[in-house]
């Protein structure tokens, strides 16, 4: 009986082979790319002013996200080629567009499978770092190791905001994460 089923089903398969008409792979890739651009365009519509221009440039590059560089001195709309990196969702793109991420850091970020919450936390961290750097006249950026440690430690937005993160070392971040401190305790530490 199994042979009968296989033989009969093979007949159906033969019919499909003779009559099926499939689009070329390139056409399907094109449809997929256009769909991605449309969705990114939708995310861009949520942003305003300069952020809107940034997000539009993201859709065109098809490489994920492009952020204005603060200290590299390069063009603010330059793309970051990252073949093989993860595709960010519209939510992630929106959050990142509001954060201050350098191109160097972004290349690393895109290789990580970040959740929207983690990216939001990073956005807070960057803004905090920017405020601190601005007050001191420094143009220091977060290092890749610091980014990785934030992601690994899974600190919440509230924890990061309270932390005043910028001057913490990787070891300190990890130690704080292990200690499971409250936002109030972290604020006291940061102060």
């Amino acid at each position, binding site marked *: *009986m*199994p042979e*009968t*089923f*296989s*033989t*009969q*089903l*093979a*007949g*159906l*398969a033969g*019919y*499909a*082979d003779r*009559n*099926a*008409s*499939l*689009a070329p*792979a*390139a056409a*399907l*890739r094109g*449809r*997929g*790319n256009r*769909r*991605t651009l449309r969705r990114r365009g939708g995310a861009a519509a949520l942003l305003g002013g300069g952020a809107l221009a940034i997000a539009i440039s993201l859709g065109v590059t098809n490489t994920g996200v492009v952020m204005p560089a603060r200290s590299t001195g390069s063009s603010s709309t330059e793309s970051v080629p990252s*073949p*093989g*990196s*993860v*595709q960010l969702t519209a939510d992630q793109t929106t959050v990142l567009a509001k954060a201050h991420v350098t191109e160097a850091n972004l290349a690393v970020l895109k290789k990580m499978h970040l959740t929207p919450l983690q990216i939001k936390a990073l956005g807070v961290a960057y803004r905090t770092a920017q405020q601190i750097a601005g007050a001191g006249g420094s143009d220091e950026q977060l290092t890749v190791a610091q980014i990785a440690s934030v992601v690994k430690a899974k600190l919440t937005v509230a924890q990061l905001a309270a932390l005043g993160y910028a001057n913490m070392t990787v070891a300190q971040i990890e130690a704080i994460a292990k200690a499971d401190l409250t936002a109030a305790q972290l604020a006291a530490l940061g102060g």
Partner: protein
Amino acid sequence: MTKADDFDIFYAATSRRLVRQIFAMTGDLSEAEDAVQEAYIRAWRRWPRIRNYEDPEAWLRVVAYRITVNSWHKARNRLTAHRAGRQRELAGLSPDLVALVSALRKIPETQRRAIVLRYLAGLSVEEIAHETGAPIGTVKARLARGRRALAPLVSESDDSPQPGVAIAVAHE
């Protein structure tokens, strides 16, 4: 090799096979084509991840199958047009294959899927269980019931095409 080249090679190697399998599950070739192509579009958008899966083809088959099932649900209010389309398609099949398509449609969707995965895709019971998310015992039961339900129609059309079978299908 670029990402696009990699995808194109995979598409060329697997797409027709998937159309065959989805067609056998749905009995509707145009629906199978649409579902398979849509599955590949989705695969391309996640290709860096999917290309590293142990069995990307299985992922595509599951996605294509779910697309067809979803389309069935959406098409409930368009059932007449749906059936009309199926009848047109059956016109191009030989009587014994029409009988087989009809017999497959008469068994539950879960049994049909198991039968196609086993006897057309050549998956083991364990692989079917993994792909469908059902326990092995359930898969065995589906296969047994599906075989039992199909046996009379398949064996009749296997020995000598029965006009009665084709007529019954035409009136379905």
